[in-house]
């Protein structure tokens, strides 16, 4: 894992001292809320319905066990004993007191953590494949590139006041996109060109929210050494031409579609070509030094693990189901990638108690080289587990309420905090997720892979546009209604879902989702997944079923 150097550590300590002074001045009345708000937001502190909310950055979703223990400490000491993992691979705490935030940031700084890049019109947390570095289908580990972008982008003076926030995702997997790259302002796929050289395929202008778009190709192949210079060129074009007069039209996706991708590409390439003496080329030695910190851990000789696992799964059906749904192919023989579900049916998606975090930190130390990943689907991952350890791991997770064998299934629902917590929401998300999770859990194995995603407002933090079944909360004359979209996808077959028709009342959502799933089960061919059946048949049969009872 990447460790901060002396400069980073000093910077963080100084930042805490600076922030402590800002909070003291605010509490003493020397700063107005208008003056203080941007200062707290730069440190990840929002004000929500019931309290302040602190969002802590987890760069590219990678955590050490020490860091996860500190997150548990923050939950226990400063919050109500739990944290909420987000769709940006971060964590947020919903019950924070302003007067305690300097101490929280001081504690976080001890383990190289902070709230920078979690708010404001600047770069947000760089995200990536939660299986980075351990999946067999990637060209190379994308995390060194995420770290290089993080170092370049964090507090970049030229880009500290962009027209709007800017999100970047990187993936090196060749078959599966687990990082929702096409839904980002700027997406990077590590790819090999005809000459065998590894570089980046660059996408631009993706995003969800009020105006959902998939990213368009800006450059088919970008040599690695030019990564930062090219990003700088793209960001300069955005900084110069992005709209600042209307917050709803300020994201780069609006600029991309207003100018057209050809014209935008021309602008970026011209800016890139004009860089001469100021062109930032990545020195190979610097890239190597960062990449070295992501070197894989020493894997043990695991001969015999596969046979042992086969015997154990044959003997215990529940364990076999967990292995089938929650473990994934690892590049090292005898090892597995383990997903820990934070979606026990009926509970708020993505929530994790302090005790659970501490247990996972212990398990990571014992079984996964002290490393944990956070997924944009609001689950956690132990990236390096020997197959012989899986059974014991499953038992301990199950005992702690973390044994749900539902990864990628109907109860593995993404949901934003919604109107229960969020100041922007129009309707609740969590209670809808809870009802659907409980209702669908019994038959989710028969349904197969299904992505249900719920947002409490059009800002789409619950990624509803790219759910196989998406659910968007609306306020209709003071009542909660939910608009349903169908056929979305956030993977390598990315698609924006289509609105099925008029929104349905909250009480009617479970029945509506049931009818959509029944239609799919009735019409699917063989192993066809929900979006494939939708693409083959179109909206008609689903719409008919959805509104049949109305």
């Amino acid at each position, binding site marked *: 894992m990447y460790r901060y150097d002396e400069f980073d550590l000093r910077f963080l300590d100084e930042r805490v001292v600076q922030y402590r002074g800002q909070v003291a001045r605010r509490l003493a009345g020397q700063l107005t809320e208008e003056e203080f708000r941007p200062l707290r937001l730069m440190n990840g502190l929002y004000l929500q319905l019931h309290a302040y909310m602190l969002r802590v950055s987890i760069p590219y979703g990678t955590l050490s066990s020490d860091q996860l223990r500190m997150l548990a400490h923050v939950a226990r000491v400063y919050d109500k004993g739990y944290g909420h993992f987000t769709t940006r691979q971060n964590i947020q705490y919903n019950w924070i007191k302003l007067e305690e935030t300097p101490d929280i940031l001081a504690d976080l700084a001890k383990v190289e953590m902070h709230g920078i890049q979690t708010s404001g019109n600047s770069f947000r947390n760089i995200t990536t494949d939660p299986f980075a570095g351990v999946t067999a289908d990637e060209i190379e580990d994308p995390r060194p590139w995420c770290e290089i972008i993080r170092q370049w982008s964090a507090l970049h003076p030229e880009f500290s006041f962009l027209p709007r926030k800017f999100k970047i995702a990187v993936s090196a997997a060749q078959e599966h996109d687990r990082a929702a790259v096409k839904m980002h302002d700027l997406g990077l796929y590590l790819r090999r060109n005809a000459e065998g050289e590894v570089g980046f395929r660059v996408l631009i202008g993706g995003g969800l929210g009020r105006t959902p778009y998939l990213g368009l190709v800006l450059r088919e192949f970008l040599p690695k050494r030019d990564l930062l210079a090219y990003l700088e060129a793209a960001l300069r074009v955005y900084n110069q031409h992005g709209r600042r007069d209307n917050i709803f039209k300020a994201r780069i996706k609006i600029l991309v579609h207003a100018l057209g991708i050809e014209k935008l590409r021309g602008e970026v390439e011209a800016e890139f070509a004009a860089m001469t003496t100021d062109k930032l080329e990545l020195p190979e030695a610097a890239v190597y030094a960062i990449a070295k910190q992501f070197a894989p851990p020493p894997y043990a000789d695991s001969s015999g693990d596969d046979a042992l696992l086969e015997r154990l799964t044959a003997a215990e059906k529940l364990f076999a189901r967990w292995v089938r749904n929650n473990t994934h192919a690892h590049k090292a023989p005898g090892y597995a990638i383990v997903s820990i579900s934070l979606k026990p049916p009926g509970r708020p998606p993505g929530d994790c108690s302090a005790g659970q975090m501490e247990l996972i930190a212990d398990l990571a130390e014992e079984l996964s080289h002290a490393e944990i990943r956070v997924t944009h689907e609001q689950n956690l991952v132990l990236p390096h587990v020997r197959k012989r350890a899986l059974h014991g791991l499953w038992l301990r997770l199950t005992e702690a309420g973390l044994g749900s064998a539902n990864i990628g299934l109907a109860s593995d629902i993404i949901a934003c905090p919604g109107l*229960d917590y969020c100041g922007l929401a129009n309707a609740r998300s969590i209670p809808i997720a809870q009802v659907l999770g409980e209702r669908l859990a019994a038959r989710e194995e028969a349904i197969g892979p299904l992505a249900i995603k719920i947002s409490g407002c059009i800002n789409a933090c619950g990624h509803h546009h790219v759910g196989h079944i998406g659910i968007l909360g609306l306020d209709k004359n003071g009542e909660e209604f939910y608009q349903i979209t169908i056929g979305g996808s956030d993977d390598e077959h990315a698609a924006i879902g289509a609105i099925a028709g008029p929104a349905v009342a909250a009480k009617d959502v479970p029945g509506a989702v049931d009818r959509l799933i029944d239609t799919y089960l009735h019409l699917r061919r063989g192993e066809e997944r929900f979006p494939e059946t939708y693409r083959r048949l179109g909206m008609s049969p689903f719409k008919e079923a959805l509104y049949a009872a109305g």
Partner: protein
Amino acid sequence: MAESAQKLATGNRLRDGVPVYFAGAGTWSPKVSDAVLVEAGAAEDLLEEAQRGETPLQAVGVELIEAVREGKRIVPVTLREKIRATGPTTPFGSR
């Protein structure tokens, strides 16, 4: 029987973000039923009074919301404000 909607002033307490309600004479209460409730015509005066007082003001983001009196209780009209007043509708945490 519930009366027609009136207005009250609310914000979040500066030091900890807890929703608070203007209770008159420069005071703020975490209980919505302590709020000063006025007719729409007097609402702007109430807002002005709520925003006066010591520096810093105890409440952040002060605004007017609609509420009704139900017996001894004051109940906000919108779901958002009901949730602000009474807390999330779902249990905390994952266990």
